[in-house]
């Protein structure tokens, strides 16, 4: 009996140590990403954010842009006080709740420009650096007070974010280009970045 008790005690100590060191996790659990892994994931996120489908409405200008060449929006459309255009020229005056593929006009719920504090380009239409976009995205005074999980939820569920992967057809009938990875991959990259503590490049 004393040998059995001693054996149980040793086993308990081994299990406790393993749990404390994190080496006894379940098969499905993953390690917290390192900062380097988080930065790599951020690089993927950044490549999506600066794609025309996203940055065309995260402008530094007083108007939206359109197309892969990111030209000024037709019809002299302006930002307006709430990023939704102005009374005679409202975003919703063309952009309906869903894409209109027969006429080539994209659509989605609550079509609007991102606020100026969420611009991802400079006034010369050049995308901001990876570090600058990252700092801005994680600045809760400029991101609607979103923490890491909030940013992840935004990337995962916001209809206008998801629209980037279902952008519909251009007026000439061809498909609009997509961001450089799938939405699932984008969400997974965001999750890794958030789990790593939303590190930003220097």
């Amino acid at each position, binding site marked *: 009996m004393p040998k059995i008790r001693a054996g149980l005690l040793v086993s308990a100590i081994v299990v406790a140590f393993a749990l404390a060191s994190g080496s006894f996790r379940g098969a499905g659990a993953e390690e917290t990403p390192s900062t380097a892994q988080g930065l790599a994931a951020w690089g993927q996120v950044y490549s999506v954010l600066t794609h025309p489908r996203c940055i065309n409405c995260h402008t530094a200008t007083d108007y939206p842009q359109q197309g892969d060449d990111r030209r000024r929006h037709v019809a002299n459309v302006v930002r307006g006080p709430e990023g939704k255009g102005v009374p005679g*020229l*409202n975003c919703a005056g063309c952009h309906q709740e869903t894409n209109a593929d*027969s006429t080539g006009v994209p659509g989605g719920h609550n079509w609007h420009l991102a606020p100026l504090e969420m611009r991802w380009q400079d006034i010369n239409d050049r995308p901001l650096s990876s570090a600058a976009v990252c700092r801005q995205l994680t600045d809760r005074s400029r991101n609607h007070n979103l923490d890491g999980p909030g940013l992840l939820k935004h990337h995962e569920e916001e209809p206008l974010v998801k629209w980037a992967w279902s952008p519909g057809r251009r007026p000439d009938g061809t498909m609009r280009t997509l961001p450089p990875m799938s939405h699932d991959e984008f969400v997974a990259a965001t999750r890794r970045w958030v789990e790593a503590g939303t590190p930003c490049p220097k």
Partner: protein
Amino acid sequence: MATYQINVNGQQREVNVHPSTPLLWVLREDLKMTGTKYGCGISACGACTVHLGGIATRSCIVPISHVGDRPIVTIEGISQDVVGRAVQEAWVEEDVVQCGYCQSGQIMSAVALLKHTPKPTEKNIEESMGGNLCRCGTYPRIRAAIKSAAMQVTKGGA
């Protein structure tokens, strides 16, 4: 083809058209309401502007399948509205129209502006009307008419 029930100028109308048919062509060809004009067909000129659910909308690029139950107001029905009536009267007083082709769209955008902003600034007018093109160049008279209508609207408490 599909059947749609739409509300145009307060009246319920039924049309049987292909779902991709732009609202403009439903109005002009099926309902014979030709006050709304075809200009560019790509939402760049504003000649086709109507109000859809209270929003100035380019009817040339909105398929009928996207309209739903939102009320449509066209140039033929805008005089039923106090602001619409004031704008039309101002248009006559200022003798705005030259060839007239773009004017129904101009009036629909002007009404949308004044309903939201009864006392518009110069910038408000420029921004709201900036998408309505006029090849005759009646812009100074359009601007004057909007200011006149604004005075009428605010004086009347509309």
